[in-house]
């Protein structure tokens, strides 16, 4: 397993994290800029999705075409995303092109052109993406359930809300960018093959002069209703649900991970066995853990034809509730070995590791060595997980269904 991550702080406070890896030829890096969906003004939901596109339409000396040509010419694979706290700019590429890629990113993040004539296509694309969600009920149901589960603004849909996107102007978005988009308040993380000293020197030159205003906390409103149905004339009823659990910062975090794994980590897990294998109710059924700094939930998706929808929901809810009755030692062994092998396999991928160390530092203020995670998983016992599940029963649900038929939510 790789060693502990290194940390370096630039003069202006920007944090750089590093986890070098042997035997790879690639490098992956990620910038987390604290301008995520929850940090936008209330009437500009989706503005960051427009910004993600607009930023790449010319920066520094390069116009839109020159910029994309330069990025593509490096064989760079981009993956950008939006979380409640951050805009995430991820890249993987061959190690030799790293310096040039960082230089281009400094232009994009600090000197984007944000030209008027490029704004409208970016806004139109964001609107289209949002409309496209109507044809993807599986994605839509999870977007809606997250929106209802988390208190405003933490559950905001990253694709935005239609009226806000319709009203957004270039000037408004430019103001949002100038007021809230500060890469040096965020994080940079890198993993793979590179010389970290050289990376630090280069980033000091590229980003060191940007001033970094103090971070502000996000005020919170209330969550949405516990059940909502959206009519859709499709073949299946798509069920999305979430239940609260403890966040990664909680001492019992690894107990929650084990519980989710027992519920849905693999093919012998409870949901797959009870819903699909024993009853043939669904093809797709699964649950996953989702955490913010101080709030977390377990989300679950299932898709099924209308006549089976009620039974599917009933069986799923029963499995969540049954967890408080405890787990078996075989279940715990499978959860432990499954989580540990995921961990080791992720350590082979530069993109997974750069993302992993960035997310750790954001959520915990430090990077957990893989060895520590392994030890924590090994320390779990049937009794300790059982105690956790009694203390934190999973019996409050936020539920959304999309499909031709509404279902009854048990009290």
């Amino acid at each position, binding site marked *: 397993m790789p060693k502990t991550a290194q940390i370096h702080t630039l003069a202006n406070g920007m944090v750089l994290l590093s986890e070098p890896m042997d035997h790879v030829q690639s490098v992956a890096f990620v910038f987390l800029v604290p301008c995520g969906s929850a940090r936008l003004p209330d009437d500009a939901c989706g503005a960051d999705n427009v910004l993600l596109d607009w930023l790449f339409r010319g920066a520094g000396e390069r116009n839109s075409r020159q910029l994309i040509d330069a990025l*593509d010419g490096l064989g760079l694979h981009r993956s950008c995303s939006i979380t409640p706290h951050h805009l995430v700019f991820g890249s993987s590429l061959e190690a030799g092109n790293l310096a040039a890629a960082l230089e281009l990113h400094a232009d994009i993040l600090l000197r984007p052109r944000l030209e008027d004539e490029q704004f409208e296509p970016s806004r139109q694309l964001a609107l289209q993406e949002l409309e496209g969600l109507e044809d993807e009920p599986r994605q839509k149901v999870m977007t809606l359930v997250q929106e209802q589960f988390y208190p405003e603004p933490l559950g905001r849909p990253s694709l935005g809300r239609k009226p806000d996107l319709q009203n957004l102007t270039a000037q408004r978005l430019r103001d949002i960018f100038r007021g809230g988009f500060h890469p040096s308040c965020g994080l940079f993380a890198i993993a793979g093959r590179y010389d970290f000293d050289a990376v630090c020197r280069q980033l000091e030159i590229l980003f060191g002069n940007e001033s970094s205003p103090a971070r502000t906390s996000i005020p919170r409103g209330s969550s949405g209703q516990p059940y909502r149905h959206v009519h859709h004339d499709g073949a299946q009823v798509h069920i999305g649900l979430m239940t609260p659990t403890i966040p990664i910062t909680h001492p019992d975090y690894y107990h929650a991970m084990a519980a989710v794994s027992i519920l849905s980590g693999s093919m012998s897990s409870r949901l797959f066995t009870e819903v699909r294998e024993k009853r043939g109710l669904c093809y797709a059924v699964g649950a996953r853990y989702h955490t913010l700094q101080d709030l977390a939930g377990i989300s679950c998706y299932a898709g099924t034809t209308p006549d089976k929808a009620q039974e599917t929901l009933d069986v799923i809810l029963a499995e969540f509730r049954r967890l408080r009755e405890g787990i078996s030692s075989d279940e715990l062994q499978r959860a432990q070995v*499954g989580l540990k092998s*995921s961990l080791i396999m992720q350590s082979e991928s530069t993109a997974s590791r750069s993302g992993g160390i960035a997310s750790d530092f954001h959520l915990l203020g430090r990077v957990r060595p893989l060895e520590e995670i392994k030890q924590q998983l090994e320390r779990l016992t049937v009794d300790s997980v059982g105690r956790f599940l009694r203390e934190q029963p999973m019996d409050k649900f936020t539920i959304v269904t999309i499909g031709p038929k509404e279902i009854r939510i048990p009290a």
Partner: protein
Amino acid sequence: MRFHQRQLANGLTIIGETSDSAQSAAIGFFVKTGSRDETPATSGVSHYLEHMTFKGTERLSALQVNEAFDHTGAKFNAFTSHENTVYYAAVLPEYLAEVTDLWIDLMRPSLRDNDFAMEKQVILEEIAMYKDTPQFDVMDRCRSLYFGNHPCGNSVLGSDESITAMTADQMRQYHRDRYGPNNLTVACCGRLDFDSLCRQIETGCGKWKPVEAGRTLSPAVGNGRRQRLGKSSIQREHICLLSPSVSVQDPRRYAASLLGMIVGDDTGSRFFWSMVDTAIAETALMEFESMDGVGVMDSYIHCGPDNAKVVLELAEKTFADLRQNGVTPQELQTAKNKVLSAVTIKCEIPMGRLVDLGMNWVYLKEYLSIQEEVRNIRAVTLDQVNDLIRDFPLEQFTCFSLGPETYPPLP
């Protein structure tokens, strides 16, 4: 990396690419059978059989199979295409032997009647799920339109009718006909001892009797037809274009794959600049898909229904320009850089390498090291790409479009 190869007396081939620096190992059982090898009466049987394989053997029930895999922490699954059924697992090296034993056992499943009846429900749910996924639905329909009576047009999932009518005896016969050792390749990569793996496979599979599992190859060039279907559950237009290209056996496949990237990569391509940058379409992709004896260029475009007409005009204009003026040296170089960095990143993980390694052997009976793949990609010339455009006119596409009910048929 070291390459190894062994063939058992009954024709089963084992190939491996080992690396001592890997953290994990990956193994795959590649059965050369898919929907193109089915008859109308057994439409969907390859995929259904892939599900049934996990339902157990003489000594294991379905739940025991899942528990046995999960005991090792393996990331395991299977997929079925028009031409192949592949069972694979990524696993920590110390569990490889255990997982291999399981796969060997499962290649001779019991196919019990009660499991067959239960899994039928799951398959019907999977068919329903894809009906609610227009991107998948439109490709399936376009394929069927393009290939007509050619077996490559057969649906992988089958239909509600064919699955409902299918009997366990039909599946047992199909399994006897297609899962012979001479129609099977085992590929492995990562950290492992090849000789001991071969001994294990010889012990487990050495007595299996070879079969006559042939496949008749015939050409297909499409028919240039255009069809549209309106559905009340759909709000956007989903367009698929298929035109002929080279087969997997054809050395020109490298040029074809680069051409796909030049025309329809998700960034910086011809489609990107004409449709996505301008916000006329949200997605516009083209990919080269090579198969046994045939190949296609496969485009998927997703836009608002009002833009469908202009999207088709733009695609035609792009194809006409390519035919007249060819691709530019810079376009070719950029496409190579993208492909090469993708190869580097993917092959750093044993599971990422496994499928290419296995497929090369299944189709070509040859080993291509990553270095050779890289050389072959680098060696593609401008003339080769332009010759391909001349020999396989992109504008002679067959088109299927799926969108809202209230819009007219395609021009």
